[in-house]
C-alpha cells in the first residue's frame, strides 16, 4: 500500500506521492532535476553553496515529522514533492460546483485556467530566490543568513511543488511550462518573471525583511485561496506550502521588529527622543524610524498591486469554477456561490475615493486584498508596541491603498499616504518624505556589512529573542566555508 504521510526516499526525489510507481512523471522530474540544480548552483555564491547551513527538512507531512533540523549544504537539501494528506470525501468548497466531490484529475473545461494559475504561482518562487541571491554577502549575522537560506531553499521547494503539478497533470504543455520556469529570470530584459514585484531588486536586508513581510504575505494569501481549490492535488500542495510559508512571515516580521528594536535602543542610549533627528540617529549606526516607514510604504504598495484589478472577471471565473476559493473559505458562513451577493470595493469618482457595491463574484480580488490588509496590519501594531515600550513618540502606519499604485483604479494617480489627492507639485515634493530616496538607499547600503561571528549582530539589528530550534545565542547557524 502507498504510504502517503511519510516521505519516501526510494527515488532521487523525496516525495509522498508514490513517485517510484509513477514512472512517467518520475522520468519527467528526473529530466527536469539537473536544470534545477544548475539554476541553483549558478545563482548562489559558491562559498555559501559549500557551507554547512542549519536547515529544517521534512521527513513526513504530519506535524511530528516535518521540521527536522540539521546541518546541510544547500545543493544537497532534500527538495521534494510533498502534499498534505488527502482529506477523505473532500468536496468542492465554492462556486457553481459547490458540494460536488473534489477533482482528483484536471477538469477539462478549466484546464487552461488552472494551468495559468499554477504557472503564475510557480513563477514567483524562483523569482524571489533570484532577487535575494547576493544578500548572504552582507548578512548582519549567521542567524539571519540561515533564515535567508531557509527561505531560499523552501522557495525552491515550492517551485518543485508547482512543477510536479504541471508535469503530473498537464502533459506536454505542463513539461514545457516547467522548463520555462527555469528560463525566465528576475529582472531579465528578454524573459522577466511574470509579476512586477518579482523583478524589483532586493538590494539590502531591510528590503528583504519588508519583502518577506509584505510580498510573501501576498504569496501566503494566494496560497490560502489556492488551498481552497476544488482541484484536490493543488489544494493539498498549497496546504503543505503554507506551513513553510509561515517561516517566511516570521523572518519578515521579526526582521523589521529587530531593526526597530536596535534603533530605539540606540536612541535611548544616546538620549535622543526626537525620531526625526535623522543625522544624529544615523550616526549611531542604526536606521531611523522615518526611513523604515518609507521602506514599509514602498513594499506594502508594491504588494497591493499583486492582487490585480479590484473588479475582475478572471477572478470571478476562477471562483465560480471552484478553482480558487476565498481566504478561509471553509470558515465563511454563506452559500459559497455568491450569485446574489454584493461586496464593497474602493473606486474613484473624479478625485473622490468612494465605496461602491459590486457583485461579490467580481470582487474576489478586492476581498482577498482586504483580508491581506487586515493580516498585514497586525504585525505593524506589534512593531509599534516596541516603539511605545521604548517611550518614543512615533507610529508606523500602513499607507492608504490609493498611494503609489500601478495597478487598479488608483494606478498612477497622485495620492498621498493618507489617501488625499494632491497636485503634481505637492506629490513630487512629498515623495521625498514618503518613499525611500537614493540617498536613503546609500545610507542603508553603508550599513550592510557582513557579521560572520557566531552570536554577533550588526549594529542596526537586535538579536532575536528566541533561537531557531531553541538553540542558544551563540549557536553557529552557518558553518561558513572559507575557500
Amino acid at each position, binding site marked *: 500500500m502507498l*504510504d502517503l504521510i*511519510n*516521505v*519516501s*526516499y*526510494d527515488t532521487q526525489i523525496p516525495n509522498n506521492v508514490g513517485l517510484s510507481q509513477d514512472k512517467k512523471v518520475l522520468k519527467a522530474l528526473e529530466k527536469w532535476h539537473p536544470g534545477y540544480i544548475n539554476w541553483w548552483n549558478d545563482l548562489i555564491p559558491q562559498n555559501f553553496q559549500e557551507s*554547512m547551513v542549519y536547515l529544517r527538512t521534512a*521527513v*513526513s507531512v*504530519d*506535524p*511530528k*515529522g*516535518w*521540521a*527536522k*533540523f*540539521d*546541518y546541510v549544504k544547500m545543493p544537497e537539501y532534500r527538495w521534494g514533492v510533498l502534499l498534505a494528506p488527502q482529506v477523505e470525501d473532500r468536496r468542492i468548497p465554492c462556486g457553481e460546483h459547490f458540494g460536488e466531490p473534489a477533482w482528483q484529475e484536471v477538469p477539462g473545461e478549466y484546464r487552461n485556467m488552472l494551468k495559468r494559475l499554477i504557472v503564475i504561482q510557480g513563477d514567483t518562487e524562483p523569482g524571489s530566490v533570484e532577487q535575494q541571491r547576493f544578500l548572504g554577502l552582507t548578512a548582519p549575522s549567521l542567524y539571519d543568513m540561515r533564515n535567508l537560506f531557509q527561505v531560499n531553499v523552501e522557495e525552491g521547494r515550492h517551485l518543485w511543488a508547482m512543477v510536479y503539478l504541471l508535469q503530473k497533470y498537464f502533459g506536454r504543455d505542463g513539461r514545457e511550462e516547467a522548463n520555462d520556469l527555469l528560463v525566465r529570470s528576475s529582472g531579465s530584459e528578454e524573459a522577466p518573471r511574470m509579476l512586477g514585484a518579482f523583478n524589483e531588486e532586493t538590494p539590502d536586508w531591510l528590503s528583504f525583511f519588508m519583502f518577506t513581510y509584505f510580498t510573501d504575505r501576498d504569496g501566503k494569501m494566494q496560497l490560502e485561496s489556492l488551498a481552497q481549490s476544488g482541484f484536490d492535488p493543488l489544494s493539498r500542495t498549497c496546504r503543505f506550502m*503554507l*506551513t513553510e510559508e*509561515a*517561516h517566511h*512571515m*516570521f523572518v519578515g*516580521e*521579526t526582521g523589521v521588529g529587530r531593526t526597530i528594536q536596535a534603533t530605539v535602543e540606540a536612541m535611548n542610549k544616546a538620549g535622543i527622543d526626537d525620531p526625526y533627528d535623522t543625522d544624529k540617529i544615523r550616526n549611531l549606526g542604526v536606521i531611523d524610524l522615518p526611513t523604515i516607514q518609507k521602506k514599509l510604504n514602498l513594499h506594502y504598495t508594491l504588494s497591493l498591486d499583486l492582487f490585480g484589478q479590484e473588479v475582475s472577471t478572471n477572478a470571478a471565473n476562477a471562483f465560480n469554477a471552484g478553482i480558487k476559493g476565498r481566504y478561509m473559505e471553509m470558515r465563511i458562513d454563506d452559500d459559497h456561490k455568491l450569485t446574489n451577493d454584493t461586496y464593497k470595493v474602493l473606486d474613484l469618482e473624479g478625485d473622490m475615493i468612494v465605496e461602491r457595491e459590486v457583485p461579490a463574484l467580481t470582487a474576489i480580488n478586492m476581498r482577498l486584498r482586504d483580508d491581506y490588509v487586515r493580516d498585514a496590519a*497586525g*504585525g505593524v501594531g*506589534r512593531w509599534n*508596541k516596541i516603539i511605545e515600550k521604548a517611550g518614543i513618540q512615533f507610529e508606523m502606519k500602513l499607507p492608504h491603498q490609493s498611494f503609489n499604485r500601478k495597478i487598479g483604479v488608483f494606478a498612477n494617480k497622485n495620492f498621498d499616504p493618507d489617501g488625499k489627492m494632491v497636485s503634481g507639485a505637492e506629490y513630487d515634493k512629498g515623495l521625498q518624505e514618503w518613499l525611500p530616496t537614493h540617498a536613503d538607499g546609500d545610507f542603508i547600503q553603508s550599513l550592510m556589512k557582513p557579521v560572520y561571528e557566531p552570536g554577533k549582530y550588526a549594529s542596526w539589528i537586535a538579536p532575536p*529573542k*528566541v*533561537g*531557531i*530550534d*531553541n*538553540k*542558544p545565542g551563540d*549557536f*553557529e547557524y552557518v*558553518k561558513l566555508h572559507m575557500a
Partner: protein
Amino acid sequence: MTAPFKQHLIDPEICIRCYTCEMTCPEQAIEHDDNNVVVDPTKCNFCMDCIPVCPTGSIDEWRVVADKDSAYTLEQQYEWMELPEQEEIAVSNGSDADTDGLEDAIAALLAEAHAGAGGKAKAPASASKPTVNMYNLAKPAKATVQGNYRLTAEDSDNDVRHIVLDLGAQPFPALEGQSVGIIPPGEDENGNAHLPRLYSISSPRDGERPGYNNLSLTVKREENGICSNYVCDLKPGDTVNLTGPFGATFLLPSDPDAHLMMICTGTGSAPFRGFTMRRQREAPSVKDSLTLVFGARRPKELPYFGPLKKVPDDFMQKVFAFSREEGETKAYVQDKLRENADKVAKLMQDPKGHIYICGLKAMEHGVEAALSDIARSNGLTWTEIRDAMREDGRYHVETY
C-alpha cells in the same frame, strides 16, 4: 485530590499570529482574536502536533498551575501583552506522569542508563534534533533482517552479533547514539506481550550503507535473555517489530571541531561505531579529534576489532585495554585513561571537548575514579567539572 496542572500557553511577544498551530491542532484547542492566539486548557491533550509547525518557538511555553481548575482561561490569555511569570506552586503528592505508559517506561529506562552522568543529561549544543517515539507498540515499524554476523571469534564464549535491519519505505530518522526498542514475540508468564528491549543503533543516520534505509545493531547473546536470544537467532528475511527511535541526549555534536573521547566496553561500542562512521562520511579530513578507549577481555572478544584497526590513527586514536590477554598485564579502560591523563584533562577544559561513556554499569565506578584523579591532579574538582560539562552537553553516560 488536586494535582498540579501543566498548562500549555503561547508567548504573545514572540508569536507572529500566522495561525499555523491553529490549523494544525487536531483537537481545535487553539483559537485567536485580533489580539492573541490562545490555547484552551480543557481541550489541549498535549499531543505536541503544534510544536514543530510553529516558526517562532512562541508555542513551546508552559506554566504549572495549582490544579486544572486554576488554569489561565481563554479570556485571561486574550488580554495578555506578555506571559505571566511562573507562580510558586505548593506541590501536593499528585503525579503528573500519566501519559503513555510505555513512553514513560522507556523514558525511565533511559534515565536509569544516563544516571551515571550525575544529573539530568543534555544533548550537545550542535547535535541534530532527534526524532523520538515515532513508532510505538500500537504502530511499530516493520524491519526486515538483511544480515546477522557474529563479531566475536567462534571459539569465544562471548557471542556478539552485528544485525542489519532494512526499513524499506518506512522513514526511520535515527541519529547516531539513539536506540530502538525490539519487541520479542510471545508472551511472558502472565500472558502479557513482552515489553520492548532497548538496543543502541550502531550505524550512522544515513544508513549502514550510505543512502540505504537500513540500520545496524550490536547485540550480545545473554544466557536466558528472551530478547537477545531472539535477536541473535534472527535470519535474513525475518521480520522484526521496532519501536522508537528513543533517546534525545546521547548524541553526536554536528560541529566538526568537536573533540570526542569515547570510552566503552563490549557492546557499549555500538553508538561509537555510529559516531565514527558519521564523522568518516561527514568530515573525513578532520584529524586528531576522536579518541576511542575500548575495553574487552581479549582482542578476539572485541566487537569490530578488525574494521577498527583499519581506521587511520590520525583520524581516530584507538586505545585498547585487555583484561585477560595472555602474557600481558591486566588493563582496564580506567588504566588507559590514566595513561592518557593529559589528553583527558585537556578535553575536560576545552569547550569543544566531549566525553562519552557507554557499556556495563560495572565500568562506571572505575572510570569515574580515574576521571576524578585526573581532574584533581590538574587542580580541578571532578564533580564541578562533570556538572559543568553535563550542563554544556559535553559529558554523556549510558550504562546498563
